[in-house]
């Protein structure tokens, strides 16, 4: 997703000289094309995220679209008040980009586990929030963010994720949920890079004779209500998966819509159960430890379907 983001943003840079990127002293190698091709439009703010995001709001006030790039919690929770007051409240055209959503930097420890960004950013009025599920969704999210003349959040995974979408989605509406696999027994919903696990879980369920629909939500705010209402009419059980805290997160957003709909569909949420991580390991390992890898999603869904 990281590389897909860079490709997509370079396309925007090529056609719009009012687009700039600020990095919080990160992106070694990754941002190299910007330094080489657009040295006047990439700024290193140093390891100073409050200054960086405030500066982004000021730069945006001079008629620019400003991408802010960092990893983990550094572009989100660290300068949260700058996102709230300086960016969102002022409608600043600032795009906060986090590389490493969830357990991407799993071995580095809790400080680098971005596990509360979905709840926290979702709570900010005026911030449109994206968490693409694969490289194709990432490439589609960037031009969509350019169309939104306001503050956005883009939660990315790492580099070299596998493609989940097999169809060309470049013309699809990335603000809407995307169905990757049709099903009849239950629906597995996810946002962000955990889509690979959700998709694989559906394959495992199929092997057990359970037909699971897989729906990706590359945009988690505003959430695609119509799709949720449609799903709630078709299924008795909806399972949500996210690589982060379930409290206030993507699953909560789904619950908010469905609880108010009165459709009476059961929802079960998979994610971090309101806790911090205390073990380290690679992303795949930690997904397993915390019950959100494909096998866990499969097993838990099968159990919930039984009753």
């Amino acid at each position: 997703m990281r590389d897909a983001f860079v490709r997509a943003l370079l396309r925007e840079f090529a056609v719009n000289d009012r687009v700039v990127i600020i990095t919080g002293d990160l992106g070694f190698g990754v941002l190299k094309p910007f330094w080489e091709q657009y040295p006047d439009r990439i700024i290193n703010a140093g390891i100073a995220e409050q200054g960086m995001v405030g500066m982004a709001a000021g730069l945006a006030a001079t008629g620019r679209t400003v991408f802010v790039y960092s990893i983990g919690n550094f572009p989100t929770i660290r300068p949260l008040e700058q996102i709230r007051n300086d960016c969102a409240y002022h409608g600043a055209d600032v795009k906060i980009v986090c590389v490493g959503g969830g357990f991407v930097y799993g071995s580095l420890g809790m400080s680098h586990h971005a596990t509360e960004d979905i709840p926290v950013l979702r709570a900010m009025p005026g911030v449109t929030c994206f968490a693409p599920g694969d490289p194709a969704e990432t490439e589609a999210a960037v031009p969509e963010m350019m169309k939104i003349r306001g503050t956005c959040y883009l939660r990315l995974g790492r580099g070299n994720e596998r493609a989940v979408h097999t169809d060309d989605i470049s013309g699809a509406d990335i603000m809407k949920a995307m169905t990757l696999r049709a099903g009849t027994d239950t629906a597995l919903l996810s946002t962000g890079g955990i889509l690979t696990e959700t998709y694989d879980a559906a394959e495992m369920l199929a092997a057990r004779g359970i037909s699971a629909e897989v729906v990706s939500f590359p945009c988690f705010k505003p959430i695609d209500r119509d799709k949720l209402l449609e799903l709630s009419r078709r299924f008795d059980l909806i399972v949500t998966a996210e690589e982060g805290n379930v409290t206030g997160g993507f699953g909560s957003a789904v619950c908010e819509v469905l609880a108010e709909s009165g459709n009476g569909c059961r929802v079960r949420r998979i994610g971090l159960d309101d806790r911090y991580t205390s073990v380290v390991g690679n992303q795949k390992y930690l997904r397993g430890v915390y019950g959100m890898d494909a096998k866990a999603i499969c097993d838990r869904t099968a159990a919930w379907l039984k009753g």
Partner: protein
Amino acid sequence: MDYEALTHAGFGGAPDVSDPKVLAWLIRRHGLEMSHLSRGSHIGSVFSVAEIIAVLYTGVLHVDPRDPKMPDRDRMILSKGHAGSAVYAALAERGFFPVEQLKTHYADGSILSGHVSHKGVPGVEVSTGSLGHGLPVATGMALGAKMDGETWRVYTVMGDGECDEGSVWEAALQANQFGLDNLIVTIDYNHMQSLFTVADTLALEPFEDKWRAFGWNVIRTDGHDTEALRAAYARACANRGTGHPTVIIADTVKGKGVSFMENDILWHYRTPQGEEYEAALKELEALRP
């Protein structure tokens, strides 16, 4: 008597608000009245920053009330947002919006919030209130102006207690790194903050040295002497080309102008009512230019 007539009484006609001494006096007069009417706080901060704001809005800032969004205007951010009524008063007196509107400050449903707000208020660029936000945003604006080869400047007015915030020093590094000699910061150095003096909270001295060490041009001035302030801004503007931003450390007195408010932290919070209001008004009347 309507609000404008009340606050302009004694001038024998329309006050000459192009005179910084007159405007500073009116900022205090409005500060007193707005705090009195609303039972709002921070009058001590409004009084300490009065001359700084008055000088900025009488010839230093290139702004036009008939065209508040003109592209080449100077940008001014009040980072110590709690002194918002000083900026509201200056903007109203300079014609950005009706003086009469000042009486709504703090009131239910008012757009003139206690901390300075840009929403629906012509002339205010940025809403602040949480400290340490103005300088980073100003840094971004100044950087954008540089990138575009624009000649306008960015001004921001901060408090001294505000310099406790780490974001101030992040931006201080960044502004110097990016060579923002189109950025002018003024610090209302009244030596008092929310509970104690600055020295007894997080001491800033040697304050000038700190900014110099961060690569800034430093100007020290009396923050209540309008001629000295005007000269300081002229020097700051002349720093364009140095490749370094400028900070004006303006020595002020919290509560300046009313004897019993001066250097008393109580007046960071207290609102003048009854005899205190009358006494303050009497002292201000004696200072009328």
